[in-house]
């Protein structure tokens, strides 16, 4: 299956903004994050199709996954 990863803020550095990623059937958000070498602590907002998702959520073909790091400065 193929999913779309949309990365925001500092997660784009060295990775890009929008990435089409091929994953095996049954892959989860955690598998996608591992593929993108995004560590757990670098994930703050995680949306699959606009809804908050957990790392163990199984992905489906065509899912859009948006990932933000903690953006906490002020």
């Amino acid at each position, binding site marked *: 299956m193929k999913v779309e990863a949309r990365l*925001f*803020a*500092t997660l*784009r550095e060295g990775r890009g*903004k929008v990435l089409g990623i091929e994953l095996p059937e049954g892959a989860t958000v955690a598998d996608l994050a591992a593929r993108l070498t995004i560590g757990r*602590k*670098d994930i*703050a*907002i995680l*949306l699959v199709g*606009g*809804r*908050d998702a957990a790392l163990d959520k199984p992905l489906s073909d065509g899912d859009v996954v*948006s990932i*933000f*790091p*903690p*953006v*906490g*400065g*002020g």
Partner: protein
Amino acid sequence: MEGSSRYGRQIAFKGVGEDGQARLSRARAAVIGVGALGTAIANSLARAGFGFVRLVDPDRVELGNLQRQALFDEDDAAAGSFKAEAAAARLSRINSTVVLEPIVARVDASNVDAVIGDVDVVLDGTDNFESRYLVNDACRRRRLPWIYGGVLGDSGVSMNVLPDGPCLRCLMPEAPEPGSYETTAEAGVLNQITAIIASIESAEAMKIVIGSPRVRRTLASISLWDASFHLLEVARAPSCPLCGPSANVRR
């Protein structure tokens, strides 16, 4: 009247008008954190004619703040003035009709209800998630709107946390642990992104207190270095401890 000459350009804008300006003059706001976001927010609210602006920050002005913290100058840094007090002093010379209340304190569990208890809207100028989650939970309990804003590097995000919309915990169930996330001390921050996010927060606060139907319900994300601007649809999370079904049962 003084209002029409001072606020003429703002009243001429149809989204505000005379009625909106009158509402602004009665509106009460709390700005939590008076750094880069907080000074730009306070500047905007005071010039726009909010009736009351509370400024809450425990820190003193330092030279390293001047790159992005708009209301302070080298004299403030040399004197080590408290940010809340220096900002209020400067703003009182810009708009003496606004009641400014500087509070030199960090927001914590003991004072958060007092800080937000008597205002119409709370704006986020903090630099840490512990404060944001305190504010989120306290505002949620009171069904009070607050506006999340954060910056890092060239990027910033903002979301209006409205009583009938998703809260910060709907997006991030638990606060990132202190020390586990990059701060602006490490990743840096551009003064242009702090100005933009502060302006977005301030415009949304105006809409909220005016009662505009145009209050934004999306998560805004901006990265200046690659010139990208996004509005993301977000929803309440059924698993949210404050907004989900189990929370409703407990209430």
